[in-house]
């Protein structure tokens, strides 16, 4: 358990406090409930681009990072399809600096042309570094695009292409800020060597006066039921052939979500997982293979991804993968297998809670799903799932008609 208090300011800001006095630091984590799933075609990547702009200047802060560094702190942020999360770590004695900085950029970001244009270049370089100049770097662009027809999950958070990033105009940026960056769309977690009463006073002082924003109901196009298998072949100068096979799965919090999570663990997590055992250690087709879920707020993907051994084609490898999946569907899952996965989830909780920052992020993330308690409730629900439930869902989800497959073929360089 992570002990916490939860409050709401009048303007809608959710404030969560987690005390831990074993060190002299504080973590200040502010989550905005906006990610790339709120973007529109032609303006993709805007949520992530905006994250960069937040580190420019605001009305009273010429340089965000410098002001924080002067108080001994450091910061970073990330954007996902669902959220944008900003975090700072600083000496707890200087906690108020974090409130000052974060509230000023929520209220009155400056967005100078210099910031916008420089960050545009920086993000373009980020795009190249991570997605163009890496072997297999463009896989998520293709896999998302293949799997989703209308939902914004069909592009990665960095954006669908460089042209979109080059094309944002001032109005796009302002509109995005006004729409998504206000107290009612944010969750603040303050954790560490802090006093809850003091935190609430500071929250009232710095965030209290910020006007409640207009909560707009963004209509995100929902993905129609997939009709039939989709397949794409890519040819790239990469070291070895690769296979990506993604199945549609339920949204977080929906029936079947936790089962899908367990299915991916049983099949593809760890050295003793079924796929590793059968296809890597017990077979000769795969050099590596894993399974995981995208874990998204709207219906997402259960993904199998693997690299082939020398000389094995992706289609041959896919046939071997299918064989193992078919067998998995027809066999009973043993109590022992299930217990293993549950032990792992339990231990994972111990490992990840060592870091104060992880605890703060988890509280914020689950608050965004509705309630910080979901962090444990999800775990407990998962612990009670029976083998036959998993089997039922596996049969429902792992159907060829719901698959999107990419054969990533290596060509000589």
């Amino acid at each position: 358990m992570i002990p916490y208090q939860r409050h709401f300011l009048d303007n809608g800001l959710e404030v969560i406090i987690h005390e831990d006095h074993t060190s002299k630091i504080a973590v200040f984590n502010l989550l905005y409930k906006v990610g790339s799933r709120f973007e529109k075609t032609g303006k993709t990547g805007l949520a992530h681009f905006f994250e960069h702009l937040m580190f420019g200047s605001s009305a009273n802060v010429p340089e965000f990072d410098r002001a924080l560094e002067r108080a001994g702190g450091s910061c970073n942020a990330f954007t996902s399809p669902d959220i944008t999360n900003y975090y700072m770590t600083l000496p707890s004695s200087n906690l108020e600096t974090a409130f000052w900085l974060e509230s000023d950029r929520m209220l009155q970001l400056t967005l100078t042309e210099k910031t916008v244009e420089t960050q545009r270049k920086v993000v373009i370089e980020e795009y190249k570094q991570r997605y163009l100049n890496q072997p297999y770097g463009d896989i998520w662009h293709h896999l998302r695009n293949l799997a989703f027809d209308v939902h914004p999950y069909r592009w990665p958070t960095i954006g669908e292409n460089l042209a979109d990033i080059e094309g944002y105009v001032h109005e796009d940026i302002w509109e995005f800020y006004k729409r998504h960056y206000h107290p009612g769309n944010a969750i603040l977690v303050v954790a560490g060597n802090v006093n809850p009463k003091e935190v609430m006073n500071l929250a009232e002082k710095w965030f209290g006066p910020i006007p409640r924003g207009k909560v707009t109901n963004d209509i995100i196009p929902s993905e129609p039921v997939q009709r039939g298998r989709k397949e794409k072949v890519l040819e790239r100068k990469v070291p070895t052939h690769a296979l990506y096979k993604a199945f549609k799965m339920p949204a977080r919090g929906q029936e079947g979500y936790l089962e899908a999570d367990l299915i991916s663990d049983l099949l593809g997590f760890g050295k003793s997982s079924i796929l590793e055992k059968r296809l890597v250690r017990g077979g000769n087709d795969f050099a590596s293979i894993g399974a995981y879920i995208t874990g998204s707020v709207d219906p997402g993907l259960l993904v199998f991804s693997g690299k082939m051994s020398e000389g094995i084609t992706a289609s041959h490898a896919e046939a071997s993968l299918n064989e193992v999946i078919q067998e998995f569907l027809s066999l009973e899952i043993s109590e022992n297998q299930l217990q293993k996965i549950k032990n792992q989830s339990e231990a994972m909780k111990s490992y990840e809670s060592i870091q104060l920052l992880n605890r703060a992020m988890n509280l914020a993330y689950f608050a965004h799903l509705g309630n910080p308690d979901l962090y444990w409730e999800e775990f407990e629900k998962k612990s009670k799932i029976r083998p036959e439930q998993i089997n039922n869902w596996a049969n429902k989800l792992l159907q060829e008609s719901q698959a999107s497959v990419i054969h990533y073929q290596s060509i000589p360089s």
Partner: protein
Amino acid sequence: MLLDRSKAPEFVIPGDFDISNPTEFHTSNGIKVFLFSTPLLEAVKIEVICKSSKLHLPLSKFQVPSFTLQLLTEGTQRFSEEELSEFFDFHASEVHPFSGFSQEGINLLTTKKHLNSVLPVFLSLFIEAIFPEEKIQKKKALRKIGLKMEREKNASRASMLFRNCLFGSQHPYGQETLESHLDEVNREDLLDYYQTKLWNKAEIFVSGDFNSEEILKLMEELSAIPKVDLESKIAEYSIEGIESCQEEKPDSVQTSIRLGNWSIPKNHPDYIPLTVFNTVLGGYFGSRLIKNIREDKGHTYGIFSSLGEIDDHNYWVISADVQKQFRQEVLEEIDKEIRLLCEVPLDEDELELVRNYLIGQMLGKFSNAFDLVDRFKAVHFSGEDFSFYQRQLEFFRKFNSSDILEIGKKYFSKEKFIEVLVG
């Protein structure tokens, strides 16, 4: 009262803080154990770190240590690979062999709940591994794909070439791993390394929540780790570095840059001032390099400088992936920034900024139990303990602009540094 947002809140510079060194124990066969007590923490970490015996092998057999370690979990006298994997996964425990240039060993991450079941099996890996031939072949095939992958990645390639430039390609720390090196790996060599050279000068780092009885029991169990003490091999290899290296890749949209040179060890009196110089140059987000190359010009997503070491060899290096058509400009700007730091004293504002930042970060660096172990290891192998950080903190409080200039003049005023470009 209306809030005045234009006034930054007061802040204080954190005071000193205590960090106590770990408690030292010995196993009954004389291996040193450093225990970091972590009250209330469920996670337990045991790290066995040894001095690599690579230098006892011919250059072409340098893959032997890493294969030996990777194969430990691939089958023992009592358990097959499948049983071992199943066992550790069932107990949610992670076993990580590691093999660096000068150090190697194996780590166990587990929980208090599972430690008693897991430890005996973990310890059996130290003496009962059998190195099945088919597993060796499988590892080779995997490693070959890994090699191809590294060759494709500009950043990995550039880091390798930088070592190449530092040491020369015929030096153990400078040579490139080739497929032929992998082909040379055989079972006899692995067995021999395992039985006579692995676990050389082992030291054990434990963090967990143990009472005194549990500690005694743990020490007894850890005595199962063989004590090996090989004579130190005085390097027979001479260092024949080269000045620069460039690999053009027409398809690349960016260029990976590595720029650096030899440096001084942690126990050198100039080392702590050097850490500050490094921070100002490229060690944090407010650094000169980030401000210039990223935040002003937008030529890169990230650029940073760091201090590194391999064995007793120390170096500094600046790394970045930059827009290809501006790589020459970036090199010139890096050069300019280094020269400025050597010639122009930092102003008060920047001094205060970097001072406060460094002091504040020091707190964060020791904020959890596992951090503590990492910080300790970072200096222990240079013959230091936590007093290193106390001295560093003292220096952060009092350094001035002439300290930085002096470091610049002494170590950065060369005309040309080692330069690697890939892409």
